[in-house]
């Protein structure tokens, strides 16, 4: 029996619904010795802004019960650096590349797209409007529908490629953001970014992260992410890329039943780089076992 794992995000065709969560897979080469990059539905690279950015001081991560906090702070080579250092490498693979973009101010979001848009290797943009770890603004954009919409519109005006706003989880009304994204011409939304969080060392009295706060990721947030995906799915008809604590194929399937067309493996890469392939194979096995022909057969099928 054969099933069709292919899905589409706007004009981007993914050979299967599984990508990686931005920031957990570097820019591609880092895991290339351990993971066959041709197997992935898409490679999502770490956040890129127009200029080189230095990120936060260390410690940048901290392990919590069952998960982790990070406040990496979006260090990166900037758009030019990315094109020079990583595009030649990424070109070698038969896998679409989603570039996660961010800006210190509104304009940056347009600028970075202008700088990247000429590269065929760049298949789509994921717009990070929800990073809890940079002071410059990312987070604020993600929690007010107005400024959120402005950024999405701005990016929409700059490119024909698919654009995928990434939503913040710490809002009471995720559906409003999903709907705004759809109205502004987004091709999909990503749900969710890390959850704002903090840990304090009770001996030193200092936060465990140099940045004081960070984002919680991994298994602890999965039930939160499933709820957000479900809420968003009922409000929009564009696809959702679901993520948050996906460690097993069953987690990915749960996201899809909740309403995600595609899923991203994040923190699990650190724990077991084999997760991505295991998840792809597991989704296929689930579809076969349940007698489905395509991914669409299970997306949003939760019975309520």
């Amino acid at each position: 029996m054969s099933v069709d794992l292919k899905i589409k995000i706007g004009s981007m065709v993914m050979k299967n619904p599984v990508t990686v969560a931005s920031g957990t897979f570097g820019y591609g080469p880092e895991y290339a010795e351990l993971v066959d990059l041709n197997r992935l539905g898409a490679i999502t690279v770490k956040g890129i802004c127009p200029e080189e950015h230095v990120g936060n001081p260390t410690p940048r991560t901290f392990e919590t019960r069952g998960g982790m906090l990070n406040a990496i702070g979006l260090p990166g080579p900037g758009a030019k650096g990315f094109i020079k250092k990583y595009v030649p490498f990424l070109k070698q693979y038969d896998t679409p590349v989603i570039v996660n973009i961010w800006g210190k101010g509104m304009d940056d979001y347009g600028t970075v797209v202008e700088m990247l848009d000429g590269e065929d290797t760049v298949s789509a943009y994921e717009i990070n409007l929800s990073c809890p770890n940079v002071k410059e603004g990312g987070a604020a954009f993600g929690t007010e529908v107005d400024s959120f919409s402005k950024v999405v519109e701005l990016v929409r005006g700059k490119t024909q490629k698919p654009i995928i706003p990434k939503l913040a989880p710490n809002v009471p009304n995720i559906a409003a953001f999903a709907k705004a994204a759809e109205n502004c011409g987004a091709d999909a939304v990503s749900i969710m970014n890390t959850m704002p969080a903090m840990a304090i060392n009770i001996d030193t009295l200092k936060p465990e992260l140099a940045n004081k706060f960070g984002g919680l990721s991994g298994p602890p947030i999965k039930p939160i992410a499933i709820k957000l995906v479900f809420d968003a799915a009922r409000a929009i008809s564009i696809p959702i890329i679901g993520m948050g604590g996906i460690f097993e194929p069953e987690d990915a399937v749960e996201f899809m039943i909740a309403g995600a067309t595609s899923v991203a493996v994040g923190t699990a890469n650190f724990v077991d780089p084999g997760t991505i392939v295991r998840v792809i194979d597991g989704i296929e096995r689930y579809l076969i076992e349940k007698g489905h022909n395509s991914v669409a057969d299970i997306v949003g099928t939760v019975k309520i």
Partner: protein
Amino acid sequence: MKQEKTTVIEHHNFQGEYRILRLSAPATGPLVKPGQFLELQVPRLAERILRRPFSIYQADESGVAVLYKAVGRGTEAMAAIQVGEQVNIIGPLGNGYPEADSGKTPVLVAGGYGNAALYILAQRMKKKGIAFFGGRSEIDILLVKEFEKLGWEVRPTTDDGSLGTKGLVTAAFDPWMNQRGVGSGEQGVENIELFVCGPNPMLKAMGDRAIEHGFTAWLSLDKNMACGVGACLTCVIKRKTENGWEWARCCKDGPIFESRDIMWES
């Protein structure tokens, strides 16, 4: 770099709180360079998910061994690992020590598990030299006989004086270094090459001396890690560049850095 499901061949107390874990790892073993490390997934580690990094203490065609100390949740849970069970590792990781300069006198400086990390280097180096090992007490000075068997001269120091010179490792190293003097040709300090593995203050102390006296010191940095492969940007340190500094990843660009390249943070 491989991800390998290994089988535990040997696991026992070594000395004090140090234990040795030997793994059958035919994919990983042959690739190992001295100074590289593994990311080990601790079986039955409750409530924590990340791997733990360990220097490779021994390696051959058939596998690898690590020598570790129980310091926290993960390393304590490792005590329950049984011979015969499966342990998942990723390795070898990191750059490893460079080829030693055959024109120079190799000097090893280590503290704590650093001795273990340097053992495989000592084994594989053609030229033998002198090793300074520091520790809190006699029980923390590892592998003296093994290094001596390889032809190394070992000079231990302990904080409490229970073995060798009393004091920090510098209490033995400094007199030796001063005796050699600067500019005295083959014997001069500028003609030694240091391979250092230990706690950060020791690394910095050795790096400062290297810069001051003009010799080379390869330092193995110990920074908390998450991915171990260069993807997450957790483990960065400041590396000097022409115009200032850049972040370098201890797991990928390191853990071995030359002292002149490091910009120490206070």
